[in-house]
Each structure stands twice: as structure tokens, then as C-alpha cells.
């Protein structure tokens, strides 16, 4: 499990197509062979997390360590393109 990078998914009890969000994230990680922590934060139950993170809408997906935020549901291709950078960074880290 990588320590530097992780994924946080902000949701609420009304977030539309949430199962699709989770499916896209899991499938992208699996296809890239990445083993990142995936944390789900429900802003309806934990509103302080929304305040701290400046989350306006749900779903929001943060790639922690890469400083990247997806607002709304990305396509698998879009998500994989960004996660490729995580993979590249991890590879460099292992080499260096």
C-alpha cells in the first residue's frame, strides 16, 4: 500500500450514481495495478470534512499526493490518465 498517495471520495446521502463512482475508481486502480488507499467521506455525516477540504459538490474525488481534484464523475479513461502519473511517480520513487 502506497503511503504518499491516496484517494479520497467525498459523497453525501444524495450523491447521484455513487456506485458508478466507486466502480470507476476501483476498476482504474485494478487496471493500472495500483494499490492505493481509498477513503470514502460522507459530508452529510461528517460536514467538518467538507469545511476542511473546501468541497462544494459531491461526488468529488481527490488524488492526495498529486494535488488533483475531480469534481463530478470522471470517465475511466480520464481517471486512468491521472493515475498513470501516480504510477510514474511511484516508479521514480522506487528507483531513486
Amino acid at each position, binding site marked *: 500500500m502506497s503511503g504518499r498517495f491516496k484517494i479520497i471520495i467525498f459523497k453525501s446521502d444524495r*450523491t*447521484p450514481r455513487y456506485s458508478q463512482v466507486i466502480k470507476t475508481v476501483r476498476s482504474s486502480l485494478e487496471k493500472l495495478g495500483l494499490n492505493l488507499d481509498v477513503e470514502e467521506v460522507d459530508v452529510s455525516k461528517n*460536514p467538518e470534512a*467538507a469545511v476542511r477540504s473546501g468541497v462544494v*459538490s459531491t461526488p468529488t474525488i481527490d488524488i492526495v499526493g498529486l494535488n488533483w481534484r475531480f*469534481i463530478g464523475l470522471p470517465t475511466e479513461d480520464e481517471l486512468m490518465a491521472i493515475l498513470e502519473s501516480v504510477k510514474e511517480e511511484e516508479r521514480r520513487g522506487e528507483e531513486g
Partner: protein
Amino acid sequence: MVKRGKSSSGFMAELKERIIAEARALEAPGERMLTGIRGFDELVRGGLFRGATYLLSGVSGAGKSIFCLEFLYRGATEYGEPGLYVSLEEHLDSILRNARNFRWNLKSLIDQQMLILLDLSVVAVGEKAMSLNTDAFTLDGLYATIETVVREGGIKRVVLDPVSVLFLQYGNVGVVRRELNVISGMLKRHGCTSIFVTETEYGKPSITRFGVEEFMADGVFLLYWEPEGDKRSRYIEIYKMRGSPHYEGKKRLAITDNGIVILY
């Protein structure tokens, strides 16, 4: 033996009573609160209704942010009402820089927690790179943030500046309108009087940018910044004020070193 509930005629009578009571509550004049902006409360015949949501619309430069800051400043300093300013576009340091042009000590109000400034502009959120895919979403992050601050800070006055940026960013006008109605309802439940700001484009005759913002508000105030010869002048118009008579027509507005004054 089957225990029967109310008879259908009893149920209908009770329903009728409830409908009449709700209609009366809607008609009943609510409690007013003064904005403290010089000359404005007279235009709306005694201030805004507590718990209501108002829309402030105008072109860039018309004085919308100053109007809102003063609404919060007067609330905190003259009426002891804590205020929340949510910036959805402009950086807060730029708003605070603007405020230095006036004799308002916002820093002291912030220190006393009588004024809370929240920067939720897209570029401000951790300076992250972004990707927007907004065909299906809620504004529950904004809802949760505002409700938390309102509840913990005992907030009575709220400004969202500008909501038009949400319509631009999220594209789906219907969903944004629905979500802002949900937020407006929450603010009403907390007894907050709110101003949602929307920006119009120069030279366009519409009251609001997307033509839907006005339908979610209890009142609509228009600010103008009109060319007159080689200068420009500012005006204000009360376009709609649900439940109250109001001044009809435009009034000249000046921005002084102590805030806004409605003139003639």
C-alpha cells in the same frame, strides 16, 4: 376487531385546517431586520424579512460585493448579528483589500467571530488542478460547509457571492437551481437572512445571467453601473420584494468611504 382511525370526513376537515393554517403563515408578515445600509431599508419599507433569501444582481463594478460586505458589517457592528461571507469566485485577500477603502475594521470582527469569511473559489481550494465532469452532482459540500458554520457560529446573515459562477461551472442550470433552493431552505430553517449574488453581462437586458436565479428568491435587487456622458453612475432598483410594498423605480447610489448611500 379492526380499530378504525379518523373518519374520512374528520381527516378532510383536519387537512383543510392545516392547509388554511399554512396559507395564513405564508401570508403573515414576518419579522423585519434592518440592513443598516443608509437609505436602503426605506426603499423596502422597513428592512428585509428575517429568514428570507434575496438576490442581488448587477454587472461587474456595480457595487454588489460592497453592498454585501456592508450588509454583514452593519449586522455585526450595529445589530450584534454574526455574518458569513462565502466567496465562490474572488479570493478573500482581494475582498479584504477592497474593504480597506472603507472605515471598516473587518479584522477586528473576524477576531471576535462576528464575521466569518470562507473562500470556496475553485482556484482557492488548495490550488489543486481540477477536472470538471458535472452531469450528475449535488452541492452537498457547500450545504454541509454553510450549515456547519451557521450552526457553530450562530450566524444570522449569509452572503453567497456569486451564485452565477455555480451555473457557469456546473452547466446544468436546473440542478444548480434545485440545489440552491435546498441551501436556501436550510438557511431559512436556521433563521438566516441571505443574499445570493448574481452577475449580469454588460449590455444584456436580462435581470439575471441565467434567467432562473430570480425564481428562487423572496426579493430581487438590481444594481446598475450606467454610462452617463464620459462617466458612469450607480443605481439601485427593488425589482421584487415578496410580502411588502417597495419603492418602484431606480434610485441613485453612491459609494463613500463609509459604505453605500442611497441618494435620490
